[in-house]
Structures are given as structure tokens and as C-alpha cells.
């Protein structure tokens, strides 16, 4: 059983004052997240990340499609006892102190009173707010509020945690702290689904990522696989001291190291290069795919449709 299973999730909003048209915000999103997995949901601003999370949290309703969390319908209130959620740029009741807020949310999540009082202190300590638990939230900085946001998302010890842009608007130190907190949750075996457009965070934390753009899923997979799929280059080493003729034309760059030649070649030219090496009876030492960054993959996937659309336009 998957921790999260989304099937054909679609959301359209009516736009226009007089003549209403439907503007799709999410188009047939289908994906699964395994238990214990840290899943990054990537996309530029307005891609449909927050829309997806709002649907899963029951804040808005889908136009079509379905989803399950831990095997139960996502709208089943009981499943939400096992779910934590941090909204994007969270705002909390600023007349409450951090401890009062956590007590309130724990009660709403069905945590028994005795357990509530036992949990609040350690959770505040964990997010680095142990010494300001009795301070009203209106006196908190943005970074502190983000940490309160994470605290409220985990106060009831959920199995699945949804985080919407958890590092958004934080300074480098704040981002590092939040990243450490997420890593801690990951180490505890929690399933984490977090949306972000900060690719370095996704690269550092996620087991798998999905790229969404204009409401459509553009790619999904293990971070390393995705990086290598767009790395687009391989390092080829063979015995020799000089690249000549046809071979030279295929290489991006090459260096001689003793009796071997170390060259970089575009993946599209790799087969041709290997064929040439075989024909010239040159001894192959190794072929290593060079990984691109997640950013390369992200840029490739978000630009993909644009290129396809341009190609489709008749000249």
C-alpha cells in the first residue's frame, strides 16, 4: 500500500466576469508516494503545487480524480489524525502563545490531554523554540513562525507530513534549520511530501521528485536517475594518445593521461563514438555517465512543452 496515491486529480477554476471559462490549475495528476519516502514536488510558481496540497488537505475540492492517503480516501476526516500539514507562509492565531497553539492543534487532532502536555515541550525544543513557548505569536519573527508551523504539523506525531514550500522566505540559516528538521523526520521513517521550487533542498533531501508545470506532471523519478537522464554527457576512457579524424569531431573535450585518452561526449554521440572505437580496434577502458543537476532536469522539463508547442506551430 502506498502512503499517498493520486489518480487523475484535476482542478479547474471558472474565470471571467460575464462569460465564465474554466481555467485548469491541475490536469489529471497521477502519482504515488511510498511509505517512508521523502518526495519532492517541484515546479515553478503557479505550477499547481499548492493546488494539489490544498486538495489533499480538503481545503478545496477537485473537479475530477481521486486520492488516498494511507489507503483511505483523502477526505476521510479520520485519516487526518495521521497527517500533518504546513501551509505556505503560515499565519497562526497571534493572540495565542506557541504552547497554547500547539495544545489547541493537538486537541483538534485527537491527542489526549495527558499526552498533549507531555508532547508540547519536546516538540518546541525540537524546533528550537523551547525558551519562547509562552510568548505570544504576534511577537515572533517569520523564521520563528515557520518553526511553529513545523511544530504544529508534527505535534500529533503524524505518519505522513505535507509541507508546502517549507523553506520559502527564510534566510540561509533558517533554511538550514528547516532542512535539518525535515531530515530528522525522514530519519524517523515518516513519509514526507514537500513542495518547493528551491531545487537544492529537493536534491539534498528527496528520495524521489516529481516536476509539475502548468498543472501537468512533466516527470517523476529517483533524483539520481533524473539527473543522469539530463546530464546528457558521458566520460569515455580508452587506450590511446590522440583523438583523430571522425572521433575528434564527436568529442566535447578530451585530455591525454599517460597511455589513455579521457574524453567527454554528448549522450547522443556516445553510440557513434563506441562504434568508431570498435572499428579502429581501440581498447575501451570505461564509460561513465556524467550526472546533470536536478536543475538541469527541472529546466528541461519545464521548457519541454514550450519547445513542443513551438514545433507544432505550422510555419
Amino acid at each position, binding site marked *: 500500500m502506498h502512503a499517498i496515491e493520486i489518480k487523475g486529480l484535476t482542478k479547474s477554476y471558472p474565470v471571467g466576469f460575464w462569460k465564465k471559462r474554466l481555467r485548469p490549475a491541475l490536469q489529471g495528476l497521477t502519482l504515488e508516494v511510498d511509505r517512508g519516502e521523502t518526495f519532492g514536488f517541484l515546479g515553478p510558481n503557479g505550477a499547481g503545487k499548492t493546488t494539489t496540497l490544498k486538495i489533499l488537505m480538503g481545503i478545496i475540492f477537485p473537479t475530477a480524480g481521486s486520492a488516498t492517503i494511507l489507503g483511505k480516501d483523502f477526505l476521510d476526516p479520520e485519516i487526518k489524525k495521521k497527517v500533518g500539514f504546513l501551509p505556505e507562509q503560515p499565519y*497562526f492565531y497571534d493572540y495565542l502563545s506557541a504552547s497554547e497553539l500547539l495544545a489547541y492543534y493537538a486537541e483538534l487532532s485527537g491527542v489526549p490531554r495527558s499526552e498533549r502536555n507531555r508532547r508540547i515541550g519536546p516538540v518546541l525544543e525540537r524546533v528550537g523554540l523551547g525558551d519562547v513557548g509562552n510568548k505570544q505569536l504576534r511577537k515572533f519573527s517569520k523564521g520563528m513562525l515557520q518553526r511553529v508551523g513545523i511544530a504544529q504539523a508534527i505535534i500529533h506525531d503524524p505518519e505522513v507530513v505535507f509541507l508546502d514550500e517549507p523553506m520559502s522566505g527564510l534566510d540561509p540559516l533558517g533554511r538550514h534549520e528547516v532542512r535539518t528538521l525535515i531530515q530528522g523526520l525522514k530519519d524517523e521513517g515518516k513519509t514526507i511530501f514537500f513542495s518547493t521550487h528551491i531545487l537544492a533542498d529537493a536534491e539534498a533531501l528527496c528520495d524521489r521528485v516529481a516536476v509539475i508545470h502548468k498543472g501537468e506532471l512533466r516527470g517523476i523519478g529517483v533524483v539520481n536517475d533524473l539527473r543522469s537522464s539530463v546530464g546528457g554527457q558521458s566520460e569515455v576512457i580508452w587506450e590511446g594518445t590522440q583523438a583523430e579524424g571522425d572521433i575528434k569531431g564527436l568529442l566535447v573535450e578530451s585530455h591525454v593521461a599517460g597511455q589513455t585518452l579521457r574524453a567527454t561526449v554528448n549522450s547522443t554521440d556516445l553510440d557513434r563514438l563506441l562504434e568508431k572505437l570498435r572499428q579502429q580496434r581501440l581498447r575501451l577502458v570505461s564509460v561513465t555517465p556524467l550526472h546533470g543537476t536536478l536543475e538541469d532536469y527541472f529546466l528541461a522539463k519545464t521548457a519541454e512543452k514550450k519547445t513542443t508547442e513551438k514545433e507544432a506551430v505550422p510555419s
Partner: protein
Amino acid sequence: MTSRLSAITLNTFREAVRDRVLYNLILFVLLLVASAPLFGQISIDLERLILVNVGLSSISLFGVIIAIFVGIGLVSKEIEKKTLYTILSRPVRRWEFIVGKYCGLLLTLVVNTALMTVGFYIALLVSAHHLHSTDFHLLVAIYFIVLQFMMMIALTLLFSSFSSPIFSTIFAFALFVIGTFAEDLKNFAALSEGIVKWLTTVASYVVPNFASLNVITQAAHDQTVGRGLILHNTLYAILYSAAVTAGAVLIFERRNLK
């Protein structure tokens, strides 16, 4: 369910208290104190009459203003500030949120009214140097004022569940004024004919009948209120509030919270 409802109720009450809603009590006391110099210049009976009218009308007016201005923000403010996101992502049913908010504001107004009532009786005691048994008949008028609050909160909550705060305020005030003259609307319906009769009859049943809940004048003249009217008004206020709150729930259950 009970735990979630009570949590939302108490949090709504706490918000009202911490946002200094109960500061209106100071204004109420000031109003009673400010009207005191008037009393020295008139007869004892008239003094009591004015005090009862000023006191009970103030309790009603302050309460209605709180019901409207706090009520319109009960849902819309939570949507606007997105605090609702962290509520609905928990095992909280949407109806529990609405009913919890309703109970929270009602609790606020009951506490507010109770404190005002204490102040009002102290003023009565100070002006007449003792309390008559008939003075406690005034509690019925105060009870009716609380019933009025029950209905006003339900109405503002209904408007708050689908409309902007400005429109909610306009709708709520308009209905409060129309409801105050509900009996006149009924009389007009009785005298009308055709489509006008039909429309005014429907309107007279839809708008809240605050007229029958206003017994301040009777109370000021020591006229007792019959048990029949107490029972009738109690049932009416409960059913009307329940129906309007159910309407708010129905709207809110289907609403996409952008």
C-alpha cells in the same frame, strides 16, 4: 467530536477576550454613570424607568454590535488569514468548525451580558437603595435579549460563510432593522393582496422576528411576561438559529477556500 467542538468554542471565546471585545463593558459602565446626574432631578419612578430602558437597551445594542462585528469575521477572517488551512487539515469536520465558532461567540455574548447584568443591578441598587422582587422580572427581558443574540450570531455566521465582511455587515444590519419591525411587516402582509401579500407573508416568516423578543418597555413598567411567550420565543429562537446555522454549514461544506 465534543472535544473538537469545545476546543473551537473556547478558542473563539479566548480570541474575543484577548482582542479586547469585553472592553465594551467599560463603555457600558460609563454610559450608566454618565446618565446618573439625570436621575437626581427626576422622581424615583421615572428614574427607575429611564435606568431600565437605558440599561436594557444598552445591553441589547452592545451585544448586537458585537454579534455583527465579531460574527462577520468568524469565518471570513480565518479564510483570509489562512488559519483555516491548519484546522481543516485535521480531523475537524466543516460543520464542527461552524458550530464551534457559533458556540464560541454565543459564550462570549453570554459572559458579556452576564457581566452587564451584574452592573445593571448594581446601578438599580445604587439608585433605589434596595432591590424589589419585581426587579428580577427584568431577567426575562435580558433572557430575550440573549435569544436575540442567538439569532443574530447565526445570521452573521451565514453571511460570513459566503460573503465579504463589508456585505456581511450590511446584510446583518439590514436584517436586524427589518427584524425589529417584523410585526409591522406581518400587519402589512395581512392588509395586502395578491402577489404583494404573498411576498410580504414569506418575508415576514423569513426575517427574524426581533419585535416579539423586545419586552424592554413591558419590563420597565413592571409588566410580567407570560410563560407562553417565554416558551414560544425560546423555541422560535432555537429553531430559527438552528435553521440559519444549518444553512451556513451547507454553504461552507461546499465552499472552495481559495
